[in-house]
């Protein structure tokens, strides 16, 4: 009985101490799981004496729902580009003006006037990448820079195709493939998209995450997937190449931003400035293997990333890349209907 009581009190005492989490010298980072380089945080702690606590999330929606509810205790969040306008419109973000920070001079010009945050009044790039076609070139040696790989697949690839189960990315790629604009509400276009997806689905093997192993085991020969995974897959299966569809392909960027109800605003600002330092941006990239948006970070990046065609988009394919905007709710509803039908 006594032991139990002691245990209970010890437990209660622990709960008590864990509650005081807003002292000076702290920062609460709310980021995608397995996305933050521990070395980056160690360096930040050493330089600024600010202890960073990382908490993970697994989707934009989870992060948004939690922060919207309030009482979350986070200072910095890292939403994807398509979600940033929602965060801004909901009034959840602090206009911390990264564009006036000291290290903003390192920001790559092409990422300054972005649709989701013109002039960078709220956000600092964390990492960015693309959605494209992973193809095992030992199975199919034709042109891989087209979405036809999954939507009108060549004979060799039929039955060996995977598609990432991400509504936004798949819908955008399909709409651009049939010649529409992302977020279109044109019923004729959407009809075409729906028919194309339903027809293509019979040629697919799966709609799953986790393709690296399956390419390595030669179970898959093609997939609509993210560039970072394509890069890592090439280390396991040297025949895998990453194609940038000429019909258009989605780009994404996750950006760090300060929450309006953050408790450690000053520390959060120091952190945003810190990650715009080229050496630190390179640390972010070295960990999760995606490109960052900071000029001069190349000098500190792992060598194998610098000439990787999955990470550095070749010049001739740059123009086809599109940052997909957040679609209005009524459009989103139509997309969900198509998506639901596709998943049946």
């Amino acid at each position, binding site marked *: 009985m006594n032991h139990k009581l002691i245990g209970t009190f010890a437990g209660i005492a622990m709960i008590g101490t*864990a509650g005081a989490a807003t002292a000076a010298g702290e920062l609460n980072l709310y980021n995608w799981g*397995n996305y933050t380089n521990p070395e980056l945080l160690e360096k930040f702690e050493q330089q600024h004496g600010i202890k960073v*606590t990382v908490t993970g999330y697994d989707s934009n929606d989870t992060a948004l729902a939690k922060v919207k509810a309030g*009482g979350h205790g986070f200072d910095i969040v890292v939403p994807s580009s398509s979600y940033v306008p929602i965060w801004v419109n909901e009034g959840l973000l602090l206009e911390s003006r990264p564009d006036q920070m000291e290290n903003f001079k390192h920001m790559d010009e092409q990422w300054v006037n972005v649709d989701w945050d013109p002039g960078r009044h709220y956000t600092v790039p964390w990492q960015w990448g693309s959605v494209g076609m992973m193809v095992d070139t030992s199975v199919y040696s034709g042109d891989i820079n087209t979405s036809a790989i999954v939507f009108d697949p060549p004979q060799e690839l039929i039955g060996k195709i995977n598609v990432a189960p991400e509504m936004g990315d798949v819908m955008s790629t399909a709409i651009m493939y049939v010649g529409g604009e992302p977020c279109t509400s044109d019923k004729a276009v959407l009809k075409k998209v729906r028919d194309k997806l339903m027809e293509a689905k019979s040629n697919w093997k799966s709609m799953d995450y986790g393709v690296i192993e399956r390419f390595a085991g030669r179970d898959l020969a093609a997939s609509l997937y993210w560039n970072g995974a394509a890069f890592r897959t090439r280390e396991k299966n040297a025949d895998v190449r990453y194609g940038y569809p000429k019909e258009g392909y989605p780009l994404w960027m996750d950006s760090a931003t300060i929450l309006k109800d953050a408790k450690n605003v000053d520390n959060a600002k120091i952190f945003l400035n810190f990650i715009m330092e080229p050496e630190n941006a390179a640390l972010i990239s070295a960990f999760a293997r995606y490109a960052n948006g900071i000029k001069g970070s190349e000098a500190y990046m792992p060598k194998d990333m610098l000439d990787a065609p999955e990470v550095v988009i070749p010049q001739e394919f740059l123009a086809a890349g599109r940052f997909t905007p957040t679609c209005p709710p009524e459009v989103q509803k139509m997309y969900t209907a198509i998506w639901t039908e596709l998943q049946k």
Partner: protein
Amino acid sequence: MASSRPFAIRRVPGFTTIAIICFALLYMPLAPLVVYSFNAGTSIALWEGFSSRWYEAAWQNDLVQEATIRSFVIATLASLFSTILATMAALGTTRTQPFPGQTAIYAMINQPLMVPEVVTAVALLIFFAIIKTATDYYGLAYLVGAHTAFCIPFAYLPIRARLEGMDLTLETAAADLYATPWNTFRRITLPLLLPGVLAGAMLAFVISLDDVIITEFVKAAGQDTLPTYMLGQLRRQMTPEVNAISTALLAISVVLVTIVFLLSRNRAK
């Protein structure tokens, strides 16, 4: 339980085959998980030689360590509180005259089993957010509270089953011999009930240790538990580190179940 003696299910033709198939289906998926936790490469499906590097990696990973300790603290407290509450609830619903509304009370106690977890999660998220902003307290108590709540039915069911199966004569005899209700409970009911309480506590502990959805919604800054940490890993890049953690958890639960089994067997003698 009290089915007729001569009929022995074990002697039904095909029993052994079906049992073996069931056990194989239950446990086979665990085999590759364990095997690949010893993979020397970074893959969870391609064998590249034997190594314990992922166990070392997990052991040295501060995030994993903190998440593990947090998971165990929450599971211990939640199973303790929920078992106490469930025992009281079980006594209240079995050692009493049937009263109007009893069925409604069963339903309410078992509500976490019926309501989809994500509904509870969203409700708790909103509810706790109000309290958090009002009190400015962000500690682990919210997670412990939430876990306690959804663990109650898991602790309640085995305890109630045990209580219902227990003979009332001993308790009646104690009362006849002028034992106070508390003494009856302490000396008679509780010792007899203990296997049920242990089973309930174990179940609650494991359920709390496993929980993802409610934890994901309720957790505040720096409150990742092992399952939510692992969930974050899955989406990006999975390494055998996840296998190593899972295998270690598996080993811990096997040890726990064995201990409880041995303890209850000794008691039964």
